[in-house]
């Protein structure tokens, strides 16, 4: 009983207090000055000029255009490197990581699902341009325009080879991350890509301690496992990977015919060079056909199973939303309503929203998560299914060539190719190679 009374007292107190806190009340009239006093203006320093965001878009287009020229015409790794350094300085350290194409997918999702938010044209451009370029020239954006990629790329020291099965398994994560990011952005919960961007703290020279630690550990790891963020986390990279597989043109290791000299074999720090199929052991073709059909038949099953599993865990997923977490907390511990050391509860109690209103809002959010969970889970199931299916497709290959999905078009392999370079040491080993 006594507890109840104190509870009511607190509610009353907060209602009164909130009135005080929000009010703009003329308790004291504006003075009428007798002296020549001039009231100062309240200053309002303006943000960066609006046209500058189009300058950013122009810089992006320019950087990617120059990179395309350097890859396809000049075949110059050095040139790509310096363009990349420029992009790192501009988009990374000068623009401090925002705006960025990786995060723009969330703005797009929010723009589609939230009628109250209109996506800025510049954010849309940052999302679309790298994807379009990828469809026609490969992952140019990753090569030189992405500050997150470049900062890892220039710190590669001694890359180790990673077993293909590890790469393929970890390579599923970007798709899951992409799906989650879209779900969280669409439900208006959070922009997780921006929140867990490991390098933004380095660009800004300051962030929360654990994000700085994460960023530095990614860079340290990246000295040996080249570009770990790009390969195993980046959600935009997942989209570019798919686009690049079907690109019209792509960086080629050799300018003319591949002579199978194997010099480029170990040049790629990202294990993104596919070897001729003779080097692989040939699998029996018959059983592969059966496996192909089995995996293909499994895909719808995986989609439904994934959709069901993610949708069923909507309660866990939706906890990230502030309304849901607050409602959960208050339903589980009603006594906390009178607590004064929890700022969120205190503000909620003072806001005039009732618990029923909060629960209604939370239920709406959870419903969105339940529906979105089907899409997210279905998407994850599809990606897993297609990855499995891809394992059993046999492709004959006679030459060394870049894997279009995984290649970042950094151009390192081009330097190793002796074709078209008469003074390359390879030709001196065997004089008959001279005319190659």
């Amino acid at each position, binding site marked *: 009983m006594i507890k109840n009374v104190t509870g009511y007292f607190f509610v009353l107190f907060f209602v009164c207090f909130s009135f005080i806190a929000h009010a703009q009340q003329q308790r004291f009239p504006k003075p009428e000055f007798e002296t020549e006093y001039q009231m100062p203006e309240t200053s309002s320093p303006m943000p960066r000029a609006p046209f500058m965001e189009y300058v950013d878009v122009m810089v992006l287009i320019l950087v990617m255009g120059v990179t395309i020229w350097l890859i396809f015409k000049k075949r110059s790794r050095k040139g790509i490197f310096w363009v990349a350094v420029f992009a790192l300085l501009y988009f990374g350290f000068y623009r401090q990581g925002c705006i960025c194409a990786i*995060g723009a997918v969330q703005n797009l999702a929010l723009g589609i699902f939230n009628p109250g938010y209109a996506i800025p044209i510049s954010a849309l451009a940052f999302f679309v341009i790298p994807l*379009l370029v990828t469809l026609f020239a490969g992952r140019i954006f990753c090569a030189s325009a992405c500050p997150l990629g470049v900062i890892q790329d220039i710190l590669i020291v001694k890359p180790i080879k990673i077993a293909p099965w590890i790469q393929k398994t970890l390579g599923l994560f970007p798709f899951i991350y992409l799906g989650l990011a879209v779900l969280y952005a669409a439900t208006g919960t959070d922009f997780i890509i921006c929140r867990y961007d490991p390098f933004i703290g380095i660009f800004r020279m300051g962030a929360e301690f654990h994000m700085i630690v994460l960023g530095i550990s990614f860079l340290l790891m990246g000295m040996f496992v080249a570009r770990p963020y790009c390969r195993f986390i980046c959600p935009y990279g997942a989209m570019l990977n798919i686009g690049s597989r079907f690109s019209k043109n792509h960086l080629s290791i050799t300018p003319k015919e591949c002579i199978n000299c194997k010099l480029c074999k170990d040049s790629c720090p990202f294990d993104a060079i596919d070897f001729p199929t003779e080097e692989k052991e040939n699998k029996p073709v018959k059983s592969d056909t059966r496996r192909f059909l089995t995996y293909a038949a499994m895909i719808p099953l995986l989609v439904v199973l994934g959709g069901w599993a993610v949708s069923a865990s909507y309660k866990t997923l939706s906890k990230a939303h502030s309304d849901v977490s607050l409602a959960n907390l208050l339903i589980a511990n009603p006594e906390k309503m009178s607590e004064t050391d929890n700022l969120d509860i205190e503000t909620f109690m*003072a806001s005039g929203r009732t618990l029923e209103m909060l629960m209604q809002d939370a239920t709406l959010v959870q419903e969105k998560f339940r529906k979105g969970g089907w899409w997210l889970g279905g998407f994850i199931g599809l990606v897993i299914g297609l990855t499995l299916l891809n394992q059993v497709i046999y492709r004959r290959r006679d030459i060394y060539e870049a894997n279009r999905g995984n290649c970042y078009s950094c151009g390192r392999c081009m330097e190793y190719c002796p074709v078209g370079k008469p003074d390359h040491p390879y030709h001196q080993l065997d004089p008959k190679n001279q005319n190659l």
Partner: protein
Amino acid sequence: MTKRIDRRNFIRGCARYSLGFGLAGVVGFVAKDTIAGEWVWQIDPFKCTSCGRCATHCVLNPSAVKCVHAYALCGYCDLCGGYLKPGHISRDTAAENMLCPTDAIKRKYVEEPYYEYKIIEELCIGCAKCVKGCSAFGNGSLHLQIRHDLCVNCNECAIARVCPSDAISRVPKTDPYLIKGDFNKGEDV
């Protein structure tokens, strides 16, 4: 040999154009309500409960949130709830009497009995102690605003995420402030 490559290229081309058109479709879908300018973050002073998280959660240190003073609202009081601590010993500029932890409010005598209060933004950390005091005991002329010469305009504002009263939202870049007006304009800022 050549036939096989042709088939591969054909599939690749089909996939490329379907991805391209898919992308164009998505863009077309959102393009109907794009805006020309960017959004920036701003605090609605009427929703703000001066909880103090702006000082601690901004990605910048010190925070891009500063206290601003709507002079048109100010009562120019000698006994200022935003300047002096509750229970201050005397009404002077001694540190023990002052509410602001960084001495960012400058008090200037205007005429009897009025004083002008000015925020020195270089010192302000956006802790909202003065805002709380001014709203509770005065006219509410001191309030928090995100200063756009400092704000790096994160895609996801770190303080908007933790704001307990959802007072921080996106506003058009062309009109980036929600500074309190005077009483004649009412609560319409």
